């Protein structure tokens, strides 16, 4: 009944929000990572501060896959309110760990799983006097139990606990004691380790575990951003929190206490983006992090920046809509909103990071693109990337890299001009020259969202108006070659009939599905799109296949829609695989849907 698996299983922890479980779950995951074994962690949490159910999933994957598998092998059921569904989720042969302080009849409802009761509450009530400690230490106790059952190295855990509480050393002993309670109980009462267990590997060297918002905030610092304006919204808040803490580390003059940055919490998103417009227009690298509802509010300004040609960097950490939707659940649902944000003819530059590593690099790229093209640039991540810790390659920075500040005339260049014309295209690439306020009297011009001609003067003349609008389109098209290019993973063994296109956080699930489909004899090429406007490679990729599956995490096939609008690709060549439950995509979902589509096609 128990399958013997080493380094290949999923632990799911069912908790109550606000009881301090997340640091315990993080500790568990990080211990496995420190043993050299790749892990995937997904936090599924409610839009609530305290009381509602929350889950944490840890996938132990010696193969180093990055997505959820779709299975649950071990369930740590700490929330009595969700016992029934948590137990139902366990695969046959799985292991259920629960708090046996109180009798629970229904834990016995399944005879095909191993049930292990540990009196966590009882042990903690006996050991700790303070009420809050009793609650918090239950979490640490189950970490101990799971560690014993999975053969996780206690020294690794001890080391991590010391790091966790480096600033509050008094808490080290307390937490160690709780971990020992759970650990010893398991060792005494159960056969340890289980058949499912962790064995040390060396597959995490050169890797880190980091969330995308932290990495994006760091990317902004490395890009030289100095002004950040924002209005709090889950799941983008931690991006500005991160930027702030990195700035406090790197951007405060130790002698004078002066700041080389300015973070403004705006009164709403309209104001946040307005501040970014003002700061960017005035020559500072500036950005705003937000989520879908914020983009909706910012739309008027986004169109203004597009037409008046002002660089903007916007991070949209996508969450489930429409409206407030499910604000703590993940989706890729703002692709079309961002692509065409604002009224009038507007088209924007989008970047699709697939993991926190790319949040770092694309954050830096976004500033270069925004200044090079004097236009809004959107970095579209999502809750899954933004708020979960992912295992990625260590971040590196090329010290020779200089920011691309675009075509900004300095004082000497302005002096040499007869007259400055803001919207002419002397280089033929659609990108005009700009000047910054305060530089030189000859550089002054009037920036307006109303009709203007190539000289920057007001116009309602049709030819003059169209000339600017057509140049804007040429400029935008030119960006196709400069956004990060698609990445193709070709199927083994020659020409594949089918292809897959995906982007962002769907990447890991698709990569794994390609492997598992290959085991079923189905070989597919995979292209990951990383930017918009689309380059010709995307068109060529689709043309080279009979059918291409477009995997996305939204209901309306938003990327497929964009592809049909923006390229000559025939509709019948694109088959959507859509996942929009709000939970991160699983490899199993991709595998099954593609397989059944192909089988249907083959039997037709």
């Amino acid at each position, binding site marked *: 009944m128990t399958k013997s698996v080493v380094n290949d299983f999923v632990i799911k922890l069912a908790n109550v929000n606000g009881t301090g479980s997340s640091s315990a779950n993080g500790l568990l995951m990080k211990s496995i990572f420190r043993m050299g074994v790749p892990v995937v962690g997904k936090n599924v949490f409610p839009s609530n501060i305290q009381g509602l159910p929350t889950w944490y999933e840890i996938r132990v994957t010696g193969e180093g896959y990055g997505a959820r598998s779709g299975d649950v092998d071990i369930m740590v059921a700490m929330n009595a309110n969700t016992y029934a569904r948590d137990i139902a989720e366990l695969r046959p042969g799985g292991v259920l760990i629960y708090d046996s302080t109180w009798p629970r009849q229904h834990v016995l409802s399944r005879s095909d799983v191993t049930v292990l009761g540990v009196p966590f509450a009882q042990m903690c009530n006996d050991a700790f006097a303070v009420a809050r400690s009793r609650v918090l230490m239950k979490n640490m106790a189950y970490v101990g139990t799971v560690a014993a059952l999975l053969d996780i190295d206690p020294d690794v855990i001890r080391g991590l606990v010391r*790091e966790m509480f480096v600033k509050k050393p008094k808490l080290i002993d307390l937490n160690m004691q709780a971990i020992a309670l759970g650990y010893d109980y398991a060792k005494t009462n159960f056969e340890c380790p289980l058949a499912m267990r962790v064995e040390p590997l060396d597959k995490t060297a050169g890797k*880190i*575990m*980091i969330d995308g918002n932290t990495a994006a905030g*760091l990317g902004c*610092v*490395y*890009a*030289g951003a*100095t*002004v950040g*304006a924002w209005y709090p919204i889950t799941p983008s808040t931690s991006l500005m929190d991160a930027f702030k803490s990195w700035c406090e580390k*790197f951007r405060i*003059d130790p002698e004078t*206490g*002066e*700041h*080389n*940055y*300015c*973070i403004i919490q*705006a*009164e709403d998103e*309209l*104001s*946040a*983006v*307005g*501040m*970014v*417009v*003002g*700061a*960017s*227009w*005035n*020559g*500072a690298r*500036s950005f705003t992090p937000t989520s879908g509802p914020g983009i909706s509010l910012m739309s*008027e300004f986004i169109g*203004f920046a597009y037409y008046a040609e002002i660089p903007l960097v916007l991070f949209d950490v996508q969450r489930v809509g429409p409206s407030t939707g499910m604000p703590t659940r993940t989706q890729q649902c703002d692709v079309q909103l961002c692509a065409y944000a604002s009224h009038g003819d507007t088209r924007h530059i989008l970047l699709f990071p697939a993991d926190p590593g790319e949040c770092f690099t694309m954050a830096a790229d976004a500033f270069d693109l925004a200044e090079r093209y004097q236009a809004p640039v959107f970095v579209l991540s999502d809750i899954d990337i933004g708020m979960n810790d992912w295992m990625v390659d260590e*971040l*590196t*920075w*090329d*010290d020779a890299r*200089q920011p691309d500040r675009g075509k900004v005339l300095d004082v000497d260049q302005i002096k040499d001009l007869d007259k400055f014309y803001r919207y002419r295209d002397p280089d033929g690439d659609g990108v005009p020259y700009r000047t*910054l*306020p*305060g*530089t*030189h009297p*000859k550089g*002054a*011009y009037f*920036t*307006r*969202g109303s009709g203007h001609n190539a000289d920057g*003067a*007001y116009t309602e003349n049709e030819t003059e108006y169209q000339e600017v609008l057509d140049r804007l389109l040429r400029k935008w098209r030119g960006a196709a070659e400069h956004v990060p290019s698609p990445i193709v993973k070709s199927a083994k063994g020659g020409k594949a009939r089918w292809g897959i296109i995906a982007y962002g956080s769907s990447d890991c699930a698709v990569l794994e599905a390609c492997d598992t489909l290959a085991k079923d004899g189905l070989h597919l090429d995979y292209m990951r799109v990383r930017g918009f406007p689309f380059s010709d490679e995307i068109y060529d990729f689709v043309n080279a296949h009979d059918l291409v599956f477009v995997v996305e995490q939204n209901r309306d096939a938003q990327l497929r829609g964009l592809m049909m609008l923006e390229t000559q690709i025939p509709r019948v060549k694109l088959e959507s695989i859509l996942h929009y439950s709000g939970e991160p995509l699983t490899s199993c979902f991709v595998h099954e849907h593609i397989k059944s589509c192909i089988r249907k096609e083959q039997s037709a």
Partner: protein
Amino acid sequence: MTSFAKPSINLKNAKRNALGLTWHDYEGAMSTLCAGCGHDSVSACMAKAFFELSIEPHRAVKISGIGCSSKTTAYFLNEAHGINTVHGRMPSVATGAAAANSGLTYIGVSGDGDSLSIGMGQFAHAMRRNVNMLYMLENNGVYGLTKGQFSASADVGSKSKKGEVNLAPPIDPVTLAMSLGATFVARAFSGDREQLVPLIKAGLKHNGFGLIDVISPCVSFNDHAGSTKSYAHTYKYYHKAVHADYVPMSKEIKTSYDAGSSVPVKLHDGGSIVLRKIDEDYDPYDRGAAYAQVVERAAKGEIVTGLLYVDETQEDMAATNKLASRPLNTMPYDELCPGNAELTALQNRYR
């Protein structure tokens, strides 16, 4: 934003300021507003104030929203960058621009529609932040550009051109500003340049957010009998309480004013704002008292003008954010990017 180039006139014997510039150097494009519009007088006063202060035109930044009033940033200071943003959102753009470079002089131009309806939130929050800028609210009681609808500053009982009577209570930018902690609050009338030009100068030199609510009649939609924002009505009911002017450090403060009622307020640059109380009862340093006076007199239909409240002791946004003295937009990149060695080190906690 229609504008035409003005014919350039050679002013040989024109008066020059300390920079050797003439008044002409502070002009803008030709206005396309209605002849007689109050906003044009305000633009002329702006140019005059900058000229008299000898501020280099290109070291000023003009920011506005949308409306007839907001168009006027094109009609003065040709050699300054200007930006006509979106309706009601000038304050946020000014805030961001001031964050990027605290070394320039920022002028925001807005209307009563732009500031008190669609943009009320941004207007309020720019005052809370004490952004270092002069905010000109050109107040005509109507939406000029969309042809005469009542704005939120229309008085109860004021009649529109079509005969409709406004019943909703007005929002007074002056008392609003006082209640939000603005540090320089003034009211003026576009028809009184003697009062307005010195006020603008004082507002430009004030460190922090300066508001001048300028009654600026709309001749096309709100200058008829029955309107409380007409020229005639304003001339009749406006009442100068406190005169204010800027006196540079170099100039001695002449005591031509009545000694008891003239009080200089020291400024960061060493100069002073000199206040002359025309109305002995008015105290522009006591926020509570000033607020009470303005409200009380408004109830009597009186329009109190001048520098109504001033507080030179508050930190502006740059100071509260501990911004470096060098503007953020001039920071060399190598001072901003921590480099790869730091990146490697900081990742220890993620390993």
